């Protein structure tokens, strides 16, 4: 896998001054090979999720479908959206967003299922 690397300064046309002591983030150019591998993996996962929907798994159908969806979304975020190659700030932002999302959805659903606790 070839990964071309250029610094932000070089990409901007040179003339940059190195700022010592500051976090220097290199601008990664993600190789088309990585994009292609990610694309093929997404196609395979789409086939898997459609195939899985034809198998009777009762309530597990939803779990399997969402699990495959989460895996596909992770591939897109890490490679197509370059988060794997991004700065700690970006990684932390994405992580904090997912965490907050899970809290909001999780708390809403737990409130919902516990309202009529024991009455079903």
């Amino acid at each position: 896998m070839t990964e071309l690397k250029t610094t932000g300064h070089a990409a901007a046309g040179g003339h940059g001054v190195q700022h010592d002591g500051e976090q220097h983030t290199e601008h990664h150019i993600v190789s088309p090979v990585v994009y292609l591998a990610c694309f093929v993996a997404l196609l395979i996962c789409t086939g898997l999720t459609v195939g899985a929907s034809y198998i009777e798994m009762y309530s597990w159908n939803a779990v399997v479908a969402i699990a495959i969806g989460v895996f596909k979304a992770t591939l897109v975020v890490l490679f197509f959206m370059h988060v794997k190659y991004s700065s700690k700030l970006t990684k932390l932002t994405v992580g904090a967003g997912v965490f907050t999302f899970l809290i909001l959805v999780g708390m809403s659903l737990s409130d919902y299922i516990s309202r009529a606790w024991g009455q079903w």
Partner: protein
Amino acid sequence: MSDSQAVLGTGEHAAHVEHPPYQRHHFVSMDQQNETVQFGMWLFLLTEIMFFGGLFTAYMIYRNWYYPAFVAGSHQLDIFLGTLNTLVLISSSFTMAMGVWCAETRRSRGLVLSLVATLILGLAFLGIKTDEYHEKYVKHHIPGHTFDWKGFTNPTPEEIAKGDKALAPDMAQKTEVYFSLYFAMTGMHALHMIIGIVLLCGMLFKASRGGYMDGHIAFVENFGLYWHFVDIVWIFLFPLLYLISRHQ
């Protein structure tokens, strides 16, 4: 002026003179500017995730509540068209990623070709979606005063052969909730696609005139993030709406 010098500190005044024209004065370096722009874009995408998250949560709760109606409603969707649209959208994400690569490596022709491919695939997605919406219109499955829930109390022999059961009238009426959420979720997704296609056309116009070849590609990169985000929303919409109720 004085602001940027105050930030730069001693010994770095030369940088102020020799920065690229697209570097804003309040940024110390292009690295800092790129980082800030990317951070801002991700914050915007997080608000979008919260927005769609609300719709997904509503869908999950109502699906639990009116489960037989949601199963019957889901059976009305065409799995083939849904799968085809998923493949179209994933392909458009791939061509957009290639567009970002072409911009990064300053391939003008490649960038234009990638954007054209992304545009065509985006329009194909909307075309297939329009076909699906039209089928809902013909079958009176669009929520509102023309909505026909009585069909769900009396499925056709073909529908029974595929596993559909007749619903009691009170549950059959709740299929309107399923289709309301179906149109709200796929409609908001389609609206994001339409906004994306408008932005894409503007970017294609600039790229076709040799734009984005000076190393200033923040717009291409951030549009790529937006487009991939729209892809992610569909990655979850597709199984939730089309797939998970196949057997019940």
